């Protein structure tokens, strides 16, 4: 019982923090309204998907350093394909590609028995290279309706970008979480040996978790392509941001605990902080420093809190 309260307390605290930050933004810039919220949500799209993917692999007890590179591969593939074919088949191909890339990452980790951090570090190079081979310099095109879909808001007071995040994550994660596989993912993350002895197919679970991560990266790549309208083969700054958001969102590094809701709220919090700093007319470089300090400070506090909890 107290465990449930504790689990939800973290997410509730994040929501409260998000709300406070939104009020603060409104106080600084009284004209901050729907359009401001919309641009925050739009900018958060790729970060949210990278974070969702990272959260899944962290829950299963691993880490994926190649998220940014996989997103780059998906973005350039989407841009190249959409120049030649209709949007829907291109999107399906890109999602499949992301899933396969994730499966390759997971398969290599399980088959070679090399630590996940090393495998995904190597795959970071590999996927970056693949992205450069597909498209040497930024180019390609994105379907018009896809570009339009992330703008505006169909449901009142909910930016489309936010709805897309919620929809994509819910469609992939909720059925997974409820299934036997979801339980296996949490079991593998909290104690791999115990899970193995209880009859969980640990290897297969890991591979699928990395596959899901790859699929989220494909969503991230698609959102990158639709944000910029082109494909950019150079990976963005999504690795660090996603790890920070995952930790801030209450997923314990090492696995087994946390969900996807917390990390995604954490992404929004980090994006709002950036907006506030921009509204305060802070030099963008100083913003980077402040953002980094906040990320590190949050992670420090979170870790200290976890440690105190563990001691009790």
């Amino acid at each position, binding site marked *: 019982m107290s465990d449930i309260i504790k689990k939800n307390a973290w997410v509730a605290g994040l929501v409260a923090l998000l709300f406070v930050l939104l009020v603060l933004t409104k106080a600084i810039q009284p004209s901050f309204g729907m359009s401001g919220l919309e641009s925050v949500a739009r900018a958060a799209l790729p970060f949210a998907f990278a974070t969702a993917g990272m959260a899944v692999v962290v829950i299963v007890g691993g880490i994926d350093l190649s998220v940014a590179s996989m997103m780059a591969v998906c973005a350039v593939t989407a841009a190249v394909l959409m120049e030649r074919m209709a949007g829907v088949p291109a999107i399906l191909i890109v999602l499949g590609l992301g899933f396969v890339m994730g499966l390759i990452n997971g398969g290599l980790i399980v088959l*070679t028995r090399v630590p996940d951090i090393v495998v995904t570090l190597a795959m970071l190079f590999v996927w970056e*290279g693949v992205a450069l081979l597909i498209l040497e310099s930024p180019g390609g095109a994105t379907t018009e309706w896809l570009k339009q879909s992330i703008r505006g808001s169909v449901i009142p007071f909910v930016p489309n970008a936010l709805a897309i995040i919620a929809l994509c994550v819910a469609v992939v994660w909720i059925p997974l979480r409820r299934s036997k596989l979801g339980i296996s993912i949490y079991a593998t993350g909290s104690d791999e040996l115990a899970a193995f002895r209880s009859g969980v197919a640990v290897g297969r679970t890991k591979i699928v978790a990395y596959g899901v991560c790859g699929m989220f990266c494909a969503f991230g790549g698609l959102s990158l392509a639709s944000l910029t309208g082109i494909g950019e083969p150079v990976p963005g700054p999504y690795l660090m941001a996603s790890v920070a958001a995952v930790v801030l969102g209450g997923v314990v590094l090492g696995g087994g605990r946390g969900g996807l809701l917390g990390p995604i709220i954490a992404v929004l919090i980090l994006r709002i902080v950036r907006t506030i700093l921009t509204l305060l007319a802070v030099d963008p470089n100083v913003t980077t420093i402040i953002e980094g300090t906040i990320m590190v400070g949050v*992670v420090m506090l979170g870790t200290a809190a976890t440690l105190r909890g563990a001691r009790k």
Partner: protein
Amino acid sequence: MNMATTDSSMVRFGRFLRDNPVIPLLAFLVLMIAVLEVIRPGIVTPFRAGRDGLISTFWVGNLIKFAIPLAMLAACQVLTMLTAGIDLSAGIVATVAAFVCATLSSIWGPVPAVLIAMSMGLVVGVVNGIGVGVVRVHPLIMTLGTGLIATGCMQVYQRLVINAGSEIPAVLSWLGTGRTLSMPNGLFLFVPFALFVFWLMRFTGFGRLLFALGSNENAAKLSGVRAWQVYVALYALSGLIAALAGLLYLGMIRQTSLSLASPLLLPSVAAAVIGGTSIFGGRGSFAGAIVGALIIRVLDTMLTLMQMPEGARTMLFGLIILTVTAIYVRITGSR
């Protein structure tokens, strides 16, 4: 005894390699150089291309020259990996040190510039150490975060000194580009440095504490090790080493940039891992990392010679790191 006799020769061979990881690595290095020679006859052995000499000292010198900064950054990774950590801020610390040194030496002269540059490394290292040792943040996150902060600080600093111009201290150019007996002068810095790291890891109490913390942190703590002090000292040392590597690299490249040494970061992790250092702590050797750095440089040359497009080069680089590590794990049967 019975166990030993029933072991297959393969297992015994594996155990031998696990205890001496440098031997298969050296064999692999020689193999790579042989492949390089096949790809471009005469690059290593000039007599085959009609020139004098059995082995090109110029080529060997170049190989060593460019492997030195990589091996120094790999030292950061080896030392931190001994305690199951990693230092992902090393590349940025090296860049910051180089940038600060180059911009300040035109204002205040080379000696204060070098000292300030080194102290930058120390500051970042101490912050890392406090985060990892006192607050217990995962090293990966902590060093990524301080790296991000350091990058931001450097960009702000760059706008302050944008008019100051830059100057490379003569000592650093001499170390970076000069040659003595056709071997790079960087060795004058690197050989004492490498001996220091060997000494530190093998013959000092500090080195034993690193191995102890990495093998079993709880056991080490219960035996009375004040872990946080070791971590702060370790990451401070790692920051200093990274700053030193950055200064040497500055002398080598003789150009300032805001991303000077950043591309060296991931190869340095790769060099440490290829060199048989376990990312889970408790096992590692700097000798292996040095050979790892040489292997990576030979690989780099090979890919350049084959005129690989940038993408294919990056890709192959990653695949080879993965393959080498996988083979290594398979042979030694350990992680």
